[in-house]
């Protein structure tokens, strides 16, 4: 799916946020691995669910819900690719060419 419109996704703020949040899921798993995820049997023995397990669960839920919402948001914004492209080209030397390249609008 990313490959179909790679550049649009790359500059999309929601897409970037979504990727960061996905990375944070991994961080969350690693942070709580030793205390929560590595020994689930200890959770069974505890009379109540320990605080750090609850915290891990809450953070996990929050992250996944945010990922879903960011995914939904991707479709609602469109990065200004024309402006981004214009900034990438050295304006002073190639001004003539920019006008030519940008006059033929190729929107997918």
């Amino acid at each position, binding site marked *: 799916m990313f490959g179909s419109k790679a550049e649009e996704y790359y500059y999309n703020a929601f897409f970037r946020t979504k990727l960061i949040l996905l990375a944070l899921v991994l961080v969350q798993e690693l942070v709580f691995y030793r205390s929560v995820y590595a020994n689930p049997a200890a959770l069974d023995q505890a009379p109540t669910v320990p605080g750090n397990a609850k915290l891990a669960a809450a953070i996990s839920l929050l992250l996944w819900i945010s990922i879903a*919402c960011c995914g*939904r948001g991707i*479709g609602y914004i469109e990065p200004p690719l024309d402006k981004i492209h214009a900034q990438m080209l050295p304006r002073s030397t190639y001004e003539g060419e920019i006008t030519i390249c940008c006059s033929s609008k190729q929107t997918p």
Partner: protein
Amino acid sequence: MLLIQTNAIADALNSSEWVFPIAECFHITAFAWSIGMIAAVDYRLLGFGIQHSKPSEVLRDTAPWTLLGLAVVLLSGPLLFLSDARMYLHNPSFVFKMYALAAAILFNYTIHRKIAQSDASSQGVRTVVAVVSLLLWVSVVFGGLFIAFA
């Protein structure tokens, strides 16, 4: 006539650029929530997932959360629908989703519940019920997804 009356609601929903996407977030999150709960019961019926509990116990523990999610789904859904009721009524994916949703909810609270509650049902029956349940809910999700592409 009904459509004209709903115009006031539609205007309110379309007044801000972000009302619709935020309602959509609630809708999608709640669907994921409920279908996840139902899937936990289905996985148990199929013979994997939460195996240390009986199907009836998995159902008992998830049912209130399933209902909560479905309540949010059924509150946010009509809001989304009313933002552009005419378009949705003519959208084949939307119509498909509504039939699939009605079938899924009906199945969930009749046959599905009955089989999950009876811990004595045969594995064959359990498998069929779990597969039908999963297929129905996946159909709802796909119907919803393709509203945007129809």
